[in-house]
């Protein structure tokens, strides 16, 4: 099976490389310095396994995983991450706390082999990603990918979100982006005092609202600074009023 190491510290990569020598069934196909290289390498090599650091330049390990359609099995390697550790503890995907011994590494490899055989590793990763939620720092931005280019959108730059089939369309200062997530996901990770679900398919950044107009029967329209008109349902209007303190 093929593996990729993604870590911004060369020595941290070298120790994994060294330990991997004792597992000839795993071929190391690439080493990456950061998440951007990681995304590219994963597309190129389609590995079965990645060793992933969490704290990395520009985008962290979690954000990188969000950009990949079908993530391979992941073993996190991290020095100290109070948020992650909590989440990992309840899930079977492995994590290695730096510095880790060869025994610990071998154990992790055995676990991986068992999971590969029973086909559970990927399912676990998804539940893990959902359970980690977002640390406070991560809620400050959203990472998206558009035709190979990765963009980082600060949440303050988001005007509103719109549901589009299986995706959410993010309308922001820098343009519109699609992200493979649900409205419910954004409702749980974004600041509730700033983003209000005004409609089943819309969520709006209240700092962008300039006016709220009545529109048909009991509905309203929120007019944003950008000129966009966002539907507000009857229940959405109640929520909006309470957040705006009306």
């Amino acid at each position, binding site marked *: 099976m093929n593996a990729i190491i993604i870590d*911004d*510290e060369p*020595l*941290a990569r070298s*120790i994994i490389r*060294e330990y991997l020598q004792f597992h000839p069934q795993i071929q190391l196909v690439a080493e990456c310095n950061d998440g*951007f290289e990681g995304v590219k390498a994963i597309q190129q090599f389609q590995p079965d396994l990645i060793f992933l650091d969490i704290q990395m330049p*520009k985008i962290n390990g979690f954000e990188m995983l969000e950009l990949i359609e079908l993530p391979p099995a992941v073993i996190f390697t991290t020095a100290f991450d109070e948020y992650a550790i909590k989440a990992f503890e309840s899930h079977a995907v492995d994590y290695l706390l730096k*510095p880790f011994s060869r025994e610990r590494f071998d154990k992790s490899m055995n676990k991986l082999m068992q999971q590969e055989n029973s086909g559970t590793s990927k399912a676990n990763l998804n539940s893990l990603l959902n359970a980690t939620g977002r640390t406070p720092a991560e809620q400050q931005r959203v990472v998206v990918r558009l035709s190979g280019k990765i963009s*980082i959108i600060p949440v303050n730059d988001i005007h509103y979100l719109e549901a589009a089939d299986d995706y959410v369309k993010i309308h922001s200062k820098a343009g519109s982006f699609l992200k493979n997530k649900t409205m419910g996901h954004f409702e749980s990770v974004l600041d509730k005092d700033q983003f209000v679900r005004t409609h089943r398919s819309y969520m709006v950044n209240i700092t962008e609202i300039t006016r709220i107009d009545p529109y048909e029967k009991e509905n309203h329209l929120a007019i944003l600074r950008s000129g966009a008109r966002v539907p507000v349902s009857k229940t959405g209007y109640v929520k909006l009023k309470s957040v705006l303190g009306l």
Partner: protein
Amino acid sequence: MARSPISVSKFRNAFIGWWVVWAILHGLLIYSYGFPSDISATDSFVTNSILLGAYWMVNNILRFYLPNKDRYWYLLFLSIFLALLVTALSNALLSFIFKGSLHSVYLLFLSNSFWLRLGIGFLLIGCMTIICVLWYTQGEDQENRQRKEDAQKLSKEAELYKLRQQLQPHFLFNSLNSISALIGTQPEQARKMIYQLSDFLRATLRKEEEQWVKMEEELQILELYLDIEKVRFGHRLSAIIEKDESCLQMNLPPMLLQPVMENAIKFGLYDTTDAVTIYMSVFKENGYLKVVVKNPFDLETSSPRQGTGFGLSSIKRRLYLLFARNDLLETEVADHIFTTTIKIPQG
């Protein structure tokens, strides 16, 4: 227990002097009514000695029991009661000393002056009560104030200590991981890094807040820290430190520069994927020791809250606790360069 005012020699002497003067005045007053000097002296001595006993009682009562402000009327009763006791006792004693028809004029004077003596006794004891109340209240206040000051000082010291000890666990564990990696390939380098890490940790543990350190020493610790970080990040990290030679002997609080550098490295390295150079310059300006640190960063992707992260806010707090000033740390953003400036007052 509060100290009695009598235990302070200045007050004791003043009190004795006052008592003697008052006793002489008392004697002269009786003498002015035409009584012989021996009777006048005895009257004064007996009365004032018994009064002395009353003063002693007042002092001791207030020393062990100081009434609340809304119970000060207790003191009025105490003074009246003691004045009655003193006057009755001294009159009885004097009548006993000068009994017989020989002193009938004095005895008549004694019984006629009962209310006057009671009044004067009440005034004297009242004065003494007030003095004692003031003394012990002030003592209590002072004790409270002292306790409060001590508590504040302790908490300030504890906070300063805590702020100084905020070593990033990331740094420690990642350094250990680097050492672990080096042991396999470059054992000599691993050994060197262990020494550097030990020296650095020792320096962070050793310093007391009051003991300021020389810039030269602080820069050495910083070099240790940078050497470790360079091993971790390889070619991606470089640092340029410019130092004005005249600053090397100047003083600053320990472990103030390292967190600034740490913040700059973190900010710089995690915000771009390129190689990063941190600039630091140390110089003297307008009587301040000035330290300027510059690191690159990406305005578009770094979230606005990152800039006031723990690294800098803890330094700001430290500077405030040390100098009671909020203007000693400044940050500036221009052209993808984040600049942190620290001013350290000298002398």
